[in-house]
């Protein structure tokens, strides 16, 4: 029987092509839309997560309490041991240390005397460690204005405005002058290899980026860090998981006598993100609901029209002695098959497209100059499990519903009239 219906669907293209196309496109658009909305609402999360908060962040207790002042004297120590145990206990997360510190950058002239100098804030991250994904995370290559990314230890990036102010060009030497974690005076020369733009006047005025190991050496923080950021391996913040992990982690240290015991905070518990993101979620939900409603209407419409169009056929079939119930049943089976094929096809296409958007994104500006670390011009989608049914279910059911609505006509009308509609 199913085979017969399949043949019908395949042979009568008018029966299949248009509804299939419409369902596929509708489902696909819904999936893309949801994925894209996931991406849009993740923007806030991502900006914060990648630059500052991580998905979870571990600091020492006193550092956490004074974090505005970048108190590296209160930094976490013995982090490798900590990271090892974290990797063991929380395999879903990847851990990466970050150090923020202040100091003075000094550019020498030919004789090695000061040519220009100015204060700056250093951002140290695992640039050389290819496993850390930090380069990708901050999309530094996209925000590069001049020169290259640091390829080896001893190389440094400056924010573009800072470099301009210091009148330094890529390839030139620059000396950091500041103090170690414990307050000792420290000098270190670096090769400035490139400039980046953050897109925030606050950060563009004077920020430099160096490798975390360079910073640890520089600041006498061997195996230490100011902040240890954790990111979910799939790149997507999961609040429930983050809360469970942070609660478990913190309870382990709650009785610790160590004044510098670590504490873990989730992304949402930093920078006042919780309220805003909860609201974003609600908004996103409403939006997708409206969209699905619209899409269902379209698909229902398709089912309806598809059914109405075939009154002639039904007339003949009824005339041939098929029962009304059977005609209706077959019609529904057909609709289910078409709905299924269309929904699967649409969902697949939509997810493929979302995947592309997730991995590569769309560059909304033709001009790469506009891309900055904080405001990347690349828009992304995010694939979450709900994408698999968000289009599929309405795709299937609205088709069925529309067909059923059209099928009413079979029962309402007289067989003779239906047959009469079969005109040659």
């Amino acid at each position, binding site marked *: 029987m199913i085979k017969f219906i399949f043949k019908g669907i395949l042979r009568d293209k008018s029966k299949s092509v248009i509804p299939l196309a419409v369902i596929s496109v509708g489902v696909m658009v819904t999936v*893309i839309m949801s994925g894209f909305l996931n991406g849009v609402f993740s923007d806030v999360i991502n*900006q914060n997560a990648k630059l500052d908060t991580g998905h979870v962040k571990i600091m020492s207790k006193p550092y956490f309490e004074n974090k505005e002042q970048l108190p590296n004297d209160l930094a976490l120590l013995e982090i490798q041991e900590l990271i090892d145990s974290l990797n063991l206990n929380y395999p879903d997360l990847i851990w990466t240390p970050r150090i923020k510190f202040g100091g003075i950058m000094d550019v020498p002239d030919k004789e090695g005397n000061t040519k220009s100098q100015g204060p700056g804030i250093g951002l140290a991250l695992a640039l050389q460690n290819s496993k850390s994904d930090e380069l990708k995370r901050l999309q530094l290559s996209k925000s590069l204005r001049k020169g290259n990314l640091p390829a080896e230890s001893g190389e440094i990036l400056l924010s573009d405005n800072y470099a301009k102010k210091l009148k330094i060009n890529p390839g030139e030497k620059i000396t950091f002058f500041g103090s170690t974690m414990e307050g000792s005076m420290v000098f270190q020369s670096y090769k400035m290899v490139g400039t980046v733009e953050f897109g925030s006047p*606050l950060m563009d005025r004077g920020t430099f980026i160096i490798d975390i190991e360079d910073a640890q050496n520089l600041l006498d923080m061997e195996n230490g860090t100011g902040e240890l950021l954790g990111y979910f391996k799939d790149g997507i913040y999961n609040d429930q998981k983050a809360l469970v992990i942070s609660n478990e982690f913190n309870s382990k240290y709650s009785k610790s006598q160590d004044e510098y015991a670590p504490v873990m905070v989730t992304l949402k518990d930093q920078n006042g993100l919780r309220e805003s993101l909860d609201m974003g979620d609600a908004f996103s939900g409403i*939006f997708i609901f409206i969209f699905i409603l619209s899409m269902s209407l*379209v698909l229902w419409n398709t089912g309806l029209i598809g059914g109405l169009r075939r009154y002639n056929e039904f007339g003949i079939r009824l005339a041939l002695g098929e029962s009304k119930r059977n005609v209706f049943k077959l019609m529904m089976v057909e609709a289910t098959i078409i709905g299924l094929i269309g929904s699967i096809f649409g969902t697949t296409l939509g997810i493929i497209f979302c995947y592309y958007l997730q991995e590569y994104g769309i560059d*909304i500006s033709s001009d790469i100059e506009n891309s900055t670390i*904080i405001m990347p011009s690349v828009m992304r989608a995010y694939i979450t499990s709900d994408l698999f049914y968000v289009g599929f279910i309405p795709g299937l059911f609205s088709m069925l519903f529309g067909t059923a609505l059209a099928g009413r006509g079979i029962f309402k009308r007289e067989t003779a009239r239906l047959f009469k509609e079969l005109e040659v």
Partner: protein
Amino acid sequence: MKLEFKLAFKNLFGAKLRTLLNVFVLSFSFVIIIFLNSIMDGWDQQAQKDSVEWEFGEGHLLHNDYDPLDSYTILDGHGEIPKRSIGMTPVLERQASVYPQGRMIGVVLKGIPSDQKILKLPTKKLNQNKDEFPVIIGKRFSESAKLKKGDRVQIRWRDKNGTYDANTIIIEEIFDSNVPNIDNGKIWIDIEKLWKMTGLENQATYFILDQNFRKGPFDSWTYRSKTTLLKNIKDLIDQKKASQSVIFGLLLAIALLAIFDTQILSIFRRQKEIGTYIALGMTRLRVVRLFTIEGSVYSIMALIFGSIYGIPFFIYMSKAGFPIPPADQKLGIAIADVIYPVYGLKLILLTILTVIISATVVSYLPARKIAKLNPVLALKGKKQ
């Protein structure tokens, strides 16, 4: 043309359910596109308004040696207030340290006339406590420095010659502004008091300008227009708008899909009708036009339908406001907790035009097929 419209309306009203569905979907697109855009415009206006009211005024006039992004220029980046300074509110900046609970926090002391009206800062409060050093700070700084209203805290600064001075300031008021720049690490004090404290009588770091300001030969000062100062906000909002346009595109796509779908099937089903039109003497082109108009009439009906529920919704939102995440505030750009949408005429007209044109286009595409129909067969009802 009139006939086409008449027929189109008749046909559409005839097919009640289908028309209603299409119109409903399309009207959603209308309402949402207008709403989201108006939120962005509202945000834009609010951010600009807040920045102007709290920080920029009608522009700034900066001392040549002063760079607002480089705190080290504060030391020498100031000068005497020019004699003919109409429409200019002076601000003097000095670096200082405050010591809440034995911690040292570097701050910028900002002196401003307590009777100023150009900024919304509650500077009147600076005048109410003659004996003390009354200051006002923003809510963000109040949180990060753990300082409350009425708190007293030690402050240390240097006078113009570099001699240390210290005293106790009292937090007279904590203001709530959406502009982080005037808040984080800033302490506002009466400029006259700051002049006395530092010996920098009649000096200013920069001026906030108002309407009465006329550009003149201010040699040691640099003019920054309001537009220049607002550029950061504009850039951020433009970026957000771009990502929204993708949503609009998808939304419109689904609505247009509905119309397209309806058109294809109605042309398929109504061949006999098409044949009749041609038989009665209509040119094929005219029939194409009839069907195209039928499609685009959806958009007109959607407009009317959308207005029925959209207008009350818009009015409600403009009163209630739309809550927005405060998370973007780290960027140093003014963002309010609640944004009130702004419905621009240009935006509405542009949206209407876009929807009508695109609805017409998708209606036209399937209707082209009519031109290729064999009128005799069509009249007979033969599917072609």
